[in-house]
């Protein structure tokens, strides 16, 4: 990242970050910053909220209003912030365990309300901070330190989950497709409503090593090779997409936004005490 951009958005004295060599999270964090820069948001009005886990260390490096909360609860804290002060741009950076296991309930309800929060899940398919246990997005059959014989759980399709719960802007990209992440986050922030971006990361240290996926570059190459843009499959019905990562802008709809709806109630009833 250019020095100019870094100095503008990072708390430079906190870098280098704590993430392992080859961890995709650094790439994703840069993409998020690029999106904020492209939009020219006022830094004082940006609030980045996270839970607990590797991804959730991101806010500590970012020069905004930043809140590192409890495990799984980022969206619940963020909902309070957005509700109390709708002028803030609220961005949640979370992980697969944080958002889909312990925080799954908050995810579906934040999406259901269509509250104007942009959620970016740094999905590395593993609990990295605790040393590599399987998560709700560890592919079935893959190993974790708590799935030594292979994980028998079915893994979540987070984008389908978010869309089903009511997210009005939903997209997916990978650490390899850093510019696409930027585009999706940018459009997510612009969307007046709940936006959900699944950003596939790589964890060479735990997930990669445990599952013999090679080094960081090998894992990045896999993201490249396995991905197919949603636009490219639109007219193809026969293609086998089972092992494919479908990237791009997946679902988009217009629904009333929560804090705007509440504002209407205030405007209607404020005078009658």
């Amino acid at each position, binding site marked *: 990242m250019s020095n100019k951009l870094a100095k503008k958005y990072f*708390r430079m004295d*906190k870098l280098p970050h704590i993430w392992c060599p080859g961890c995709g999270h650094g790439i994703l964090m840069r993409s998020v910053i690029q999106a904020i820069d492209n939009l020219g948001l006022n*830094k*004082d*009005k940006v*609030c980045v*909220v996270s839970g607990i886990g590797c991804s959730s260390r991101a*806010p*500590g490096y970012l*020069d*905004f*209003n*930043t*809140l*590192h*909360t*409890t495990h799984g*609860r980022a969206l*619940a*804290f*963020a*909902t*309070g*912030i*957005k*509700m*109390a*002060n709708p*002028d*803030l741009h609220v961005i949640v950076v979370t992980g697969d365990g944080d958002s889909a296991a312990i925080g799954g*309930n*908050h995810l*579906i*309800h934040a999406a259901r309300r269509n509250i104007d929060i942009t959620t970016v899940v740094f999905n590395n398919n593993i609990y990295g901070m605790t040393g590599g246990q399987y998560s709700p997005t560890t592919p079935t059959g893959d190993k974790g330190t708590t799935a030594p014989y292979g994980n028998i759980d079915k893994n979540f399709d987070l984008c389908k989950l978010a869309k089903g719960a009511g997210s009005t802007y939903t997209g997916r990209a990978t650490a390899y497709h850093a510019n696409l992440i930027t585009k999706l986050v940018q459009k997510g922030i612009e969307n007046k409503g709940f936006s959900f971006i699944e950003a596939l990361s790589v964890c060479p240290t735990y997930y990669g090593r445990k599952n013999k996926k090679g080094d960081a570059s090998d894992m990045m190459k896999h993201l490249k090779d396995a991905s197919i843009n949603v636009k490219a499959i639109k007219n193809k019905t026969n293609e086998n997409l089972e092992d494919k990562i479908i990237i791009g802008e997946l679902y988009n709809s217009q629904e009333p936004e929560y804090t705007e709806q*509440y504002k209407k*109630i*205030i405007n209607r*009833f*404020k005078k*009658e*005490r």
Partner: protein
Amino acid sequence: MEKNNIKLMQGNEACVEGALAAGMNFFAGYPITPSTEIAEISSQRLPRFGGKFIQMEDEIASMAATIGGALTGAKAMTATSGPGFSLKQENIGYAAMAEIPCVIVNVQRGGPSTGLPTSPAQGDVMQAKWGTHGDHPIIALTPSSVKETFDTTVKAFNLAEKYRVPVVLLMDEVIAHMREKIEIPKKEDVEIMDRIKPDEDDVTYQAYEVKKGDIVPPMASFGEGFRYHVTGLVHDETGFPSNDTEVADKLIHRLVDKIDKNVDDISFYEEYKTNDIDTLIISYGSTARSAKTAVDMANNEGMNVGLFRPITIWPTLEKQIIDLAKKVDKIIVAEMNLGQYALEVERLASKYTQVHHLGKIDGDLITPNEILSKIKEV
């Protein structure tokens, strides 16, 4: 003639009125008996003042949203009962660690678990102090009438702001649902404390640095331009995480000391007929109402009995309890649990006097006659 503002209302309603008088403008909650009216009335009243109400998906989320609201500058409250209070605990610890002012109402009902949802209890006294993990500061207040619920809720907000600490309003089902006459004070007669904030142009602002002469660090609201970091990790004066043992030691001591060293400012209680007595009843909340009647009954029978009624449950009113313990032959702690506040009283008073306990956990109130019998028995 000036129009008076006398109303008949239940404790839960008085709680909301007190909160509004104190400046509450944000409430996040989840329905649970017997606290639900607090959420219902808040949902109805808040938007009329331009405030915000949100019903969250669970108790954990309501505590989180309450903290989120407070971080933007709001005076925030949530309300719950036993099972929900258990669920809120992790985030209450977060509020204690990150010094986020907020009020948590716990209308106590019979426990453990789902217990007796519509019956009163006082079984959450220890949980109010020790429910979340680790050593941490907490203030808990317990009213024993509808009027006092109003006043204590105002105090809860003021203390939360002054000490940047979560304050638990420990009600019980009887106080919550009982209807009494209450005169709502005029706006100008309600003392309101606001959090201290940094000067707008303070370029040296460090989010967790206590300025000389202050008790807590000034608190900027998110969005005001200070762009600081808040975490539940051990942090230094800048607010950023640290693994340094000295930093951890200094932080946790500062958090605990800000309450312990200001206990006089946080001490609220009532002494009833405590001069020249040999028996002291210690009781609080709805049980204290029975205790007061029992004191009168006992004195009418020629005994010398008085009542000490703590309104501040945490921090413990050590000085007052020790002073009284030195003057009496015996203390009876009457409470709707199997001996929780009694543990604190024993810790402080057993050196000086006998400490007895009268407890009840069947969902019925402790009656004046039961207390009178206990006085006679001991």
